[in-house]
């Protein structure tokens, strides 16, 4: 672990984050956008655990925050899928471009 250093983990996390943001920006399927959000949360989690390893002041905190993020991501996925299923029941589509009922 000594010769590896912190930077490769940060680069991997940055790449995952960029992939997640691109996924959120380009997908038209609502479930695809949800997967992009999962990628972004995972990127943040990799950062948290890497800092817990490489920064002795955050040995406990990094893991605790990572576990909180995992639990909150599960909650977010549950509620988002419920909303998507409701939208699908009412409109028979999951294309976010068609979700414009509130548009004036």
């Amino acid at each position: 672990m000594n010769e590896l250093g912190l930077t490769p983990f940060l680069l991997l996390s940055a790449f995952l984050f960029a992939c997640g943001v691109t996924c959120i920006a380009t997908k038209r399927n609502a479930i695809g956008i949800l997967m992009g959000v999962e990628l972004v949360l995972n990127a943040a989690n990799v950062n948290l655990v890497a800092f817990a390893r490489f920064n002795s002041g955050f040995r406990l905190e990094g893991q605790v925050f990572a576990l909180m993020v995992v639990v909150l991501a599960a909650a977010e996925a549950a509620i988002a899928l419920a909303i998507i299923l409701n939208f699908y029941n009412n409109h028979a589509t999951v294309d976010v471009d068609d979700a414009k009922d509130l548009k004036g």
Partner: protein
Amino acid sequence: MSLPVVLFVVVATATAVSAVGVVVSRNVVRMAVWLLFTLIGVSLIYFLLGAEFAGAAQLIVYVGGTLVLVVFGVMLTAHGPLRELRTRQAEWIVGGSLGAALFVLLVVVSLKLGSPQPDEAPLPGTHTLGLSFLGVGDTSPAGPVSGVPADKHIQRTQSSYFLPFEIVSVHLLVVLVGAAYLARAKRRVKS
């Protein structure tokens, strides 16, 4: 090249390739499979970092729970033309340039950060994590806080995470009740 470096290169390459697969694949079922490989790769990264409990929780909660939920959503909604929604060229350009700009920004910041030296002591295991979640006081590690001047010694307070733990648990309960209410089967109105 020692074993951790080789393992990191292999796992990180697999994770990055499957993240790219999530972005570029058009079929939503294939996206779910690529996301599965990405999540497994991230949990392997946790194991490499020595955070065994976080890796196991990632495998159980994310791969076993969240992804199954997402796959159920895919199966309930993806049929016919909804399985492959095409993205317009302009949206690809805007989204891709946004992602590339963010990636360059994060890489520049990460390279500026330097590499702190890790201490080889193992990370706090499940024992310490569980005690800190239960609010037992003396679980805070005595490490120095980074980001403050070296001559200024900051005494860390005892940290326990009982209140966030309770808030998260109640939040999870409320969210699951709300999700069940939102997604319940509606009774058809007889017409």
